[in-house]
């Protein structure tokens, strides 16, 4: 089969509409997501005040471990997401899965702490309003990051829609929780390991449902 008349007409029309284009760069997507994270963090700080314990040295090691792992997961998910915005075939990076597994140690440690030493953790119950505040605020920040990711993906041409939706949720959830984490003075493992990690799977599930129709092309 060679060019059919219909195809020849289509090619003529496409050629007629050919103009210079500005290339889509994955680095620009990463920068956009980083800026959205910064904006979300500044928004959270404006609303809830920066926790000065972070710079005074008061923050516990759990604070640094939790937020460090959230940052790693956010970076790995963002890198995979922006790479997947361009059509390509072949192996895909699995760093997000490994960093998610690393983050998964925290809720496990938190549950063991709560079960075995409940007296030393004051903010662990489901009825604790501070914890719900952390969860909802982190998810609010995740919406900002997720919107930036979707904006970039719509600009690109993702060919693995489900994977990109999961990655959007992982990046948004982890970076959103990190952004809110700058304001939260509760730095015990029982609080951080549950309430600051929970936004990640919740955002991932929400993104898996919401994002595909937004990025399909």
């Amino acid at each position, binding site marked *: 089969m060679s060019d059919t008349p219909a195809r020849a007409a289509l090619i003529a029309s496409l050629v007629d509409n050919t103009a210079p284009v500005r*290339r889509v760069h994955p680095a620009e997507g990463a920068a956009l997501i980083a800026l959205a994270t910064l904006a979300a963090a500044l928004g959270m700080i404006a609303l809830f005040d920066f926790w000065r314990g972070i710079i005074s040295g008061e923050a516990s090691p759990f604070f640094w471990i939790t937020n460090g792992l959230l940052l790693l997961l956010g970076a790995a998910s963002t890198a995979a997401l922006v790479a997947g915005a361009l059509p390509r075939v072949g192996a895909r990076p699995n760093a997000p899965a490994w960093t998610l597994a690393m983050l998964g140690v925290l809720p496990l440690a938190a549950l063991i702490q709560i079960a075995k030493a409940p007296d030393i953790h004051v903010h662990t119950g489901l009825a604790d309003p501070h914890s719900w505040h952390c969860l909802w605020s982190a998810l609010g920040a995740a919406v900002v990051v997720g919107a930036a990711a979707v904006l970039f993906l719509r600009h690109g041409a993702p060919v693995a829609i489900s994977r990109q939706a999961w990655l959007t949720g992982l990046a948004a959830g982890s970076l959103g929780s990190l952004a809110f984490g700058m304001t939260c003075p509760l730095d015990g493992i029982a609080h951080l390991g549950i309430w600051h990690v929970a936004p990640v799977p919740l955002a991932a599930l929400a993104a898996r449902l919401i994002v595909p129709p937004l990025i399909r092309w």
Partner: protein
Amino acid sequence: MLADEPTLARLMHAMQQGDKAAANVLLSESGLWLERYFRRRVPPHHIDDLVQEVLIALHAKRATWDPSRPFLPWLAAIARYRWVDHLRRSYRQQAGELFDDSASTDSEEDVVLARVSLDRLFAHLPARQAEAIELVKIGGLSIEEASRASGQSESLIKVNIHRGLKKLAALVEKAE
């Protein structure tokens, strides 16, 4: 003879910069390459439609090609994306027909399409799902006739066809 990878990459680079002559050659050559790509994947009468869909996508998304990478894998990724989309549309259409109880009135064209699209993937399905799809979607039997022929209940035939087609679409989507 089809253009080679370095030539196609040069043409694509020129097209990104607005070169209409390069765009004309690239789109024509890509059309030929895509014909070969789809020849082993879809029935002959669907090839031209899919080729045109991919050419439109190539043109619309030309900003997403990175000149430091080869061109053909980029084009193959778009072609595969459009092919999966085509299969998904076929699956939805067939699933809709199934639950409208109109499977027995499938045209010959639909039956041929189902065989070409699904035959190669049948090995991945449980035997009863493959049997249900084979009898109804390819053999052209009604749900009742397939139920009698296979010994599966009518509900099971419907469920097995639904699950089988869904699994096939998922298999194709996951495949590299």
